[in-house]
């Protein structure tokens, strides 16, 4: 076991722990911060693998931008806090699928690359990467810039509140759900009391507007 392996082990433990806490945390904001820890740990993994440019891009794009974007998303959607509200009934299925896949992939990886070791860890220099981007990969690079432009315009168009040229704020389009449970509280009430459900549907339209109005205040 070389020094590289030891350094990688430390960084990998931080990264894996952060990832586990990201998907199991009860607090949404804590989950976003653990995601930032995980992404920073992945940047550390890139550093150990001698990919310094990718590590810096990871730090700037992911930890700097995407994590903050997730925090914005969480705060703008005012999500509830608590494990019961965050996890659905598929936890067992999720553990089974991901655990089974992990076992299968681990066996495959160890079987294929179990004895492979690199004598020295080395990668391209930043100058080489720059030369290669603008020689070999210039067409994908330009296509990527168009994709980023389209994503920018699309995100603004999707997320902005106003419609039309006047710039006045309009009420968002409501989707009439009929008797389908559109609110969390409504759904929970139906799940808990069978009698309430009959009452809810028999007593006319439960009123999607009323349900929506008080649900997430």
């Amino acid at each position, binding site marked *: 076991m070389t020094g590289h392996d030891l350094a990688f082990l430390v960084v990998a433990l931080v990264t894996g722990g952060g990832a586990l806490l990201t998907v199991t945390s009860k607090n949404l904001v804590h989950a976003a911060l653990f995601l930032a820890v995980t992404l920073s740990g992945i940047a550390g993994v890139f550093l150990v693998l001698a990919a310094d440019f990718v590590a810096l891009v990871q730090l700037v794009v992911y930890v700097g931008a995407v994590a903050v974007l997730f925090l914005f*998303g969480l705060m703008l959607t005012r999500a509830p806090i608590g494990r019961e509200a965050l996890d659905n009934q598929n936890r067992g299925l999720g553990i089974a699928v991901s655990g089974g896949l992990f076992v299968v992939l681990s066996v495959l990886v160890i079987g294929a690359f179990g004895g492979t070791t690199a004598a020295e860890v*080395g990668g391209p220099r930043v100058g080489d990467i720059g030369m290669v981007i603008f020689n070999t990969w210039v067409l994908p690079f330009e296509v990527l810039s168009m994709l980023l432009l389209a994503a920018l315009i699309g995100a603004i168009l999707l997320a902005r509140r106003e419609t039309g040229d006047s710039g006045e704020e309009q009420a968002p389009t409501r989707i009439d759900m009929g008797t389908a449970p559109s609110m969390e509280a409504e759904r929970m009430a139906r799940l808990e009391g069978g009698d309430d459900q009959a009452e809810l549907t028999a007593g006319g339209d439960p009123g999607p507007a009323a349900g929506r109005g008080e649900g997430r205040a």
Partner: protein
Amino acid sequence: MSLVGPLLLATFLFCVGIYGVIARRNAVLVLMSVELMLNAVNINLVAFQNLLFPAEAAVSGHLFALFIIAVAAAEVGVGLAIVLNLFRTRATVNVDDVDLMRW
């Protein structure tokens, strides 16, 4: 340095991401789990490039990792915009409640 370590870490992150996508019900948390899976693939690409083919002229592993990072950033932007729109129209970001297309 052995190649198995980064590959196993990537496998672990990918499976944790799958668990998050299946078990979480908040749409923003599902997007976070998708990010974990994309990052796992990046670790694989960089590890293969630097440990197996360090002298490859086209630097394919690094470039693919960089492209994936850029595409993932765009995906997060559009995905969060869609989630915001969902919250505005349905007042929920619970993926279990958005079953309008269920048969």
